[in-house]
């Protein structure tokens, strides 16, 4: 079965220790996490993890099943890249001198929809949000100018289809009263 990038979206309670439980599920199966982000979701008090991994569909189905077994996980989904709208953000720190010496770099920033975040006498910080390829292209372009620092975020993604978490939560509340 072919391996490809899957985006796993996990809606969870906002509780301590859950990241370690989720990470352990991948670790135990020797699956390297390509990127991971955690943030509040569209639902109050519900967190959302977005994890990108390169695995087969059979593997991702089993992993999602194990993730959903965790007590504080409300629901986990997996999607192919075609089924999501995904972005990454990167910060590039460049020597100010390089930037001032070559005006073409300013044009390039405009063309790539990057933006300048901070300017000091020592350095500029440029931010770019986009697909991995676009972020990498800007990296390649800026590197000759003296890239002092570079950092890229994990993937953040929303699905093209609806994720009815509020409805799922309501269902949990009505089917859980077994003592």
């Amino acid at each position: 079965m072919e391996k490809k990038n899957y985006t796993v979206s996990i809606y969870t309670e906002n509780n301590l220790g859950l990241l370690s439980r989720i990470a352990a599920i991948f670790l135990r199966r020797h699956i390297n996490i390509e990127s991971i982000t955690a943030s509040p979701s569209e639902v109050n008090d519900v967190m959302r993890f977005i994890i990108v991994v390169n695995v087969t569909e059979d593997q991702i189905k089993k992993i999602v099943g194990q993730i959903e077994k965790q007590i504080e996980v409300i629901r986990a989904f997996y999607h192919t890249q075609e089924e999501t709208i995904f972005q990454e953000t990167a910060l590039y720190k460049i020597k100010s001198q390089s930037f001032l010496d070559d005006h073409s770099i300013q044009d390039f920033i405009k063309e790539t929809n990057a933006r300048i975040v901070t300017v000091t006498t020592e350095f500029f910080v440029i931010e770019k949000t986009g697909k991995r390829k676009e972020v990498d292209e800007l990296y390649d372009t800026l590197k000759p100018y003296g890239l002092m620092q570079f950092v890229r975020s994990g993937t953040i993604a929303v699905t093209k289809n609806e994720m009815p978490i509020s409805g799922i939560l309501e269902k949990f509340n009505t089917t859980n009263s077994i003592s």
Partner: protein
Amino acid sequence: MEVKTASFEKVEKKAMTVSGAEAVIKCLLEEGVETIYGYPGGAIMPVYDELFKYQDKIHHVLTRHEQGATHAAQGYARVSGKVGVAVATSGPGATNLVTGIADAMIDSTPMVCITGQVGSNLLGSDAFQETDIVGISTPITKWNYQITKAEEIPEIIAKAFYIARSGRPGPVLVDITKDAQFASLDFTYKKCSGIRSYKPYPEVNLLEVERAAGVINNAKKPLIVFGQGVILGGAEDLLKKVVEKAGIPSAWTILGLSALPTDHPLNVGMVGMHGNYAPNLLTNECDVLIAIGMRFDDRVTGNLEHYAKQAKIIHFEIDPAEVNKNVHTDYPVLGNVKETLNSLLDLLKENQHTEWHDRFKELYKEEYKKVVSLNLDVSKPDIHMAEVIQQINEFSKGDAVIVSDVGQHQMKACRYGKFNQTRSNVTSGGLGTMGFALPAAMGAKMAVPEREVVAVIGDGGYQMTIQELGTIFQTKIPVKIVVLNNGFLGMVRQWQQLFFDKRYASTEMINPDFVTIAKGYHLKTNKVTERSELKAAVKEMMESKEAYFLEVKVEQEENVFPMIPTGAAVSDILLE
């Protein structure tokens, strides 16, 4: 008047205020806990101090090692169906629980472990006896939590018990810092009846049940394989009704044993590596395989590439993650088996499958000739393990709880043990934990004091938790202990014989005088070396009102057959 009111309120408030440690005890009482197993130490001392005050309400059993506490709690839980409780201090006390927790996790045993922890101001500082037990136990618990504030105690412990016993049961660990045990809180308790993100039971989909019933009704050669899910779901009677109505030969996994009486005419024995010949062989001939509350463990399936490929697979399962995990399922039926089997029963047509069942009988005859008769052969000089189990059956009449350790004797105890009642077979299945049986038998006996509980242990596993003889002596738990001594780590030796050219690397055991050791713990003892002594010795043991230790010298190099070699198909099962 105002002063009186204020004074009254003050008294009321004072009555409600307790320490975190006392709150822990009150929570246990609220959950109906009567017996707990544990070992004190610095970080859990406030709880032990309160236990002293409540000793008329909660029986604390001082095991000789924290591992013994978890296994005892497991034995108690497996036989009673209640949540077992183990308590330990921080650091080494907590890490000593790990084997029992892992065992409980893989065998779905409801257990709550409470550990003390260093003060919250010391967390992360490598303080004396500090370990990150929450981190360590994360992959082997159904849930865990570290309490750092006394007021969290009632809610978290209520949640722990709910999670441990609901749905597919499992172990939960609650770690409580010492300052949280000392601090005060206003105690009120409310049992947990639901957690927003946790759905213990999948909703039953009647369409799934109907589809499964249709496939079963049309099957020519159906085979049921049932596991512990039947027992955990309290569906033993329903299983029996389903089996009888549809006339389906039914085999069990090692943890499913005793869900259906062993002498039921449709009980065709154990599946798996050392299971019975017919159910293993015919797994690859049946047209419909109905898995009920079992998880297709690799010891059950052998090589997955050659497992029941010709059959339609129906899987009755509470845990959605188990469906399609190991074996592709054609017809999943999610839900608690008590609900799904109940729905199934009405939809099943009465059937007999006589010819198909005759195939099992024929193959059993072959197994009897090549294996069973040899295992019970009294013409050879040495005593066979199976003979000892037969003698236990003789005196228990199938009504005893048999707790087996791990190894050759375990396979013999499960294959030859006779069980009339459910929850009567206690053994370490998924983890295969040597040292399990002695403490687990103590817990089992405390859960069902009216029943006979016999621990069957090998000489290797016995020495892993032999110190629990001290607990048995102190608490006077009248458990019966049978050590089948062959002077070897028998199962490993068998593999060395079969697959490593008889190189018996580190499997021979030079054993101490077990009888003298048991006598040192003031137990009644006996030792059998001759077959002629066996029957009387087992009789004396079974009739004893006190704890009893019986050592039986058995054949040194006896092997367990049938056997599916590692990596082979279930139908490649060897009889010799």
